[in-house]
């Protein structure tokens, strides 16, 4: 653990300034839509930076020369046909997938270097999965409290009050003592978001968070994500929800065949796409 804590207070490789993560963490307060702070402009250094990133699954070239910078406070939505590499790109950010070449820097850590310990970086990144992956043997509350207590060493009472606050924020405080199997899909996914937020992360990753949900539950999850975006959370979202992309994204990336084919604001993307493949994709889904 000590080695993590040491590397945790480290120097940013770009600007040579000590990294003080605690100051930058978004607050956990429930922010109403109209009182949300203005979106931070792109400033300073990117918090996620892909440089010539390549990845293969065996012979399959799944990521081809990915170059992308994501800045603090940005909401980036990645869309594209299935098998285009969008989930893989997302999963590289917290090294659930390793890359074979290129440089990937996240929160000042060069995680493309296998010698860099990923654990402290992961603590700063919340992740929400398509199939929720809540811990079935733990209650909702315990699901949310586990990482803060074991990773951040927060005392139980404090972890519990954070968890309850987050459950209020995602709209299901009454389910605190329930087990995941007793919740609907939408409720489970909202608990999963609360679990990710409990570490007060700097980045939230969403891997098709609504794809496994029944249609009537999609909205409740998207609403939570929208509220989060308004608070200024840095979010990278892989989704097929074009309405969400249009409304919430600062930037949209379109991927196909392992490459980023087109990037731009939602207006650019949905109104005036340039690339033929983007147009074809949008014709199919819209």
């Amino acid at each position, binding site marked *: 653990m000590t080695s993590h804590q040491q590397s945790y207070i480290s120097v940013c490789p770009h600007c040579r300034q000590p990294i003080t993560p605690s100051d930058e963490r978004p607050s956990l307060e429930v922010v109403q839509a109209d009182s949300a702070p203005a979106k931070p402009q792109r400033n300073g250094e990117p918090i996620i930076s892909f440089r010539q990133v390549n990845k293969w699954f065996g012979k399959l070239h799944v990521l081809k020369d990915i170059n992308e910078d994501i800045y603090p406070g940005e909401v980036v939505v990645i869309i594209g046909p299935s098998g285009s590499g969008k989930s893989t790109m997302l999963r590289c950010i*917290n090294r*659930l997938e390793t890359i074979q070449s290129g440089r990937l820097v996240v929160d000042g850590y060069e995680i493309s270097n296998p010698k860099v310990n990923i*654990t*402290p970086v*992961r*603590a*700063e*990144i*919340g*992740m929400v*999965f398509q*199939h929720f*992956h*809540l*811990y*079935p*043997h733990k*209650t909702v509350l315990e699901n949310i409290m*586990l*990482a803060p207590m*074991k*990773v*951040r060493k927060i005392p139980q009472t404090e972890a519990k009050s954070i968890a309850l606050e987050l459950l209020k924020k995602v709209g299901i405080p009454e389910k605190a003592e*329930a*087990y995941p*199997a*007793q919740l609907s899909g939408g409720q489970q996914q909202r608990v*999963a978001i609360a*679990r*990710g937020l409990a*570490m007060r992360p700097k980045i939230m*990753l969403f891997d098709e968070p609504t794809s496994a949900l029944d249609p009537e539950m999609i909205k409740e999850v998207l609403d939570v994500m929208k509220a989060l975006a308004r608070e200024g959370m840095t979010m990278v979202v892989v989704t097929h929800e074009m309405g969400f992309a249009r409304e919430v994204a600062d930037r949209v990336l379109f991927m196909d065949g392992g490459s980023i084919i087109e990037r731009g604001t939602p207006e650019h993307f949905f109104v005036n796409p340039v690339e033929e493949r983007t147009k074809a994709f949008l014709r199919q889904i819209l």
Partner: protein
Amino acid sequence: MSIDVITRNIPYLYEGFKVTLQLAAISITLSFVFGTIFGMARLSKYRIISIPATIYIEIVRGTPLIMVIFWIFFLIPVLIGHPIQPFPSAVAAFTVFTSAYIAEIVRSGIKSIPVGQVEAALSSGLTYWQTMRYIVLPQALTKMIPPLVGQFISLFKDTSLAYIIGVMELTRRATIVNNREYKSFEIFTFVALVYFVVCFTMSKYARYLEKKRRVGEDHRTEEKYTPANA
């Protein structure tokens, strides 16, 4: 048929029963610990750890228990130069034997946990060992209870084989009583009954434990199809 031969020898047999229980309890505890270690070792991504564990498991699983007992009781003294007592060598043999089977149970238990559980835990900042301890092993254990208890029941019954190397456990004492009294039917029926009662209790307790651990986790199992509610 006389019940008399049993009642007269109960104190003598009871001493043997205590040895049987000790033998089983110590061997079960040790083989659970070593079995978990070997099971995790076999899943290790480092070949230097997984290959020796695999070799050990395969060798033991391809060997009769009685050979392991003989091997440890007769060959270890040759190797180390002095004899070892029957009881510790029986414990060692049962541990070596049962650990291999438990290792396989642990391995399949761990492998039955969806990879998403591990990814969720790791991505929240937990280390590999924390993920194992708080997420994987508790869930695996619930799934492992039925085969694990089956293995413990087997081990409990197999402790009777220790009589061959002279451990004064229940079966050995029963044969001694039989040699003295020539009442095979009564004595061995009684001893069999004792083994059965203990094993049956373990089996019942396991069902209870499994149910208790599954509370909340899997409440939908109640609604699953069974021939009874069809």
